[in-house]
């Protein structure tokens, strides 16, 4: 291993331990790692944003093609972006809102049609199940459960009427489906989370401690 790798492994291992110490309680080591993490990550995104967004999408197109035809609108983007900073000029501070308004407007527009087309339609179509199951009892049963689940959960989300009487009972069944779904999903996720921890412990035990012992001539 090169020197920078050895040094890096030690830094990474010590920072890992500092963060993990939070499980016991808040302490200066955790606070150090937390502060460093906040700073380093912010600096990281400064580099990434410049290198991956502003450079390829703004600086290079403007530098190579100049402000003509297809790139003219990029000047607009630059202005809208800079306009976010008018907030620091008291007299025209209110103008900064127009950048936010534009940004939000564009994305709520996209979201609206995408949600209707990409989520409501396919999910509704997928729920149009064949209750006959084509003779297969299990598949007929599953289709029935699926249908009841979707409809009662939708009833739970119905806001315009009070949930009492028959409607209340149905929406209660909807809650049971939600709870069953949440419980199952919770249990299912445990495995993935444990894998992450195994990854960190492998790093500490095998790469850091094991690696150090090996380089000192212990073990093989």
């Amino acid at each position, binding site marked *: 291993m090169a020197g920078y790798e050895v040094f890096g492994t030690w830094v990474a291992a010590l920072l890992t331990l500092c*963060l993990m110490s939070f499980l016991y309680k808040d302490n200066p080591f955790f606070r150090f790692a937390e502060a460093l993490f906040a700073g380093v990550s912010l600096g990281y*995104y400064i580099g990434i944003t410049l290198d991956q967004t502003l450079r390829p999408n703004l600086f290079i197109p403007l530098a190579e093609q100049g402000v003509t035809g297809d790139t003219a609108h990029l000047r607009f983007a630059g202005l809208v972006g800079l306009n976010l900073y008018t907030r620091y000029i008291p007299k025209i501070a209110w103008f900064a809102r127009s950048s936010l308004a534009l*940004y939000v407007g564009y994305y709520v527009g996209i979201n609206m049609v995408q949600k209707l087309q990409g989520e409501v339609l396919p999910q509704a179509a997928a729920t149009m199940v064949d209750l006959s199951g084509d003779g297969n009892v299990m598949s007929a049963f599953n289709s029935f459960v699926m249908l009841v689940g979707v409809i009662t959960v939708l009833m739970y989300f119905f806001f315009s009427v009070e949930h009492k009487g028959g409607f209340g009972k149905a929406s209660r069944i909807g809650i049971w489906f939600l709870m069953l779904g*949440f419980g199952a*999903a919770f249990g299912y996720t445990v495995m993935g989370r444990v894998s992450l921890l195994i990854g960190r412990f492998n790093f500490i035990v095998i790469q850091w401690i094991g690696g150090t012992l090996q380089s000192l001539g212990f073990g093989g």
Partner: protein
Amino acid sequence: MEHFDASRLNALVLFIVFCVLVLTFIGRARAGGDLFIRKIAGLNAIDEAVGRATELGKKVLYVPGIQSIDENQTIASLAVLSHVAKMTARYGTELDVPNKDPLTFASARETVREAYMQAGRPDLYNEGIVHYVTYDQFAYTAAVSGTMVRERPAANFLIGSFFAESLLLAETGQASGAIQIAGTAEVAQLPFFVCACDYTLIGEELYAAGAYLSREPSMLGSIKGQDWTKAAVALAILLGVIFESVHIFPAFKQWISIN
């Protein structure tokens, strides 16, 4: 109209039905129609949570999720934040809004400042209430977790779009003894909020929250419009199930599923 994308006709029909229903009910509500909306427990608990923070003389922590304002959940969260900020302004309770996304940060600053103005307490507003932390999900989580254990806010709001940090924040907040009100439409994170928070706004409840809290007729009207669209969708599903089960009109399901 030779440019029209015929494969999206089904989406256009849904879009039109939806807009017509929502606009109709907004109109009716403004004209003084029925405004009933069922109780949403998580939202009624906001008063309790802010009230407790005020009594204990501790602060209220509001986490608006980790996505930018290009995500509707964030906008829904800012509507709730506006309500919470008005309450903290009125009671003179300390409010803390750490941010992960810079545009959400810029928006939240406007929201909170205006809320303090509306509540008649611009004197209590300061630029430190809404502050920026970092753009990284987990660095942000570490910082907010630190705040939770060090400053022990009495009420934590975790409302907006969350990912893996949902449980890290909710568990830390739980251990620090705060009342926690969460809300998200991220299906994968709901189980964790439901398990670790006192109240959880589930999916659509989050989007309806702003309207519910504002009690404004046009807002409530839009909720009714979306409700009736939902009923229409449920009806379409039932129709589709009947057609599929007796094997007639396969075109119905096919037409809806074109994507």
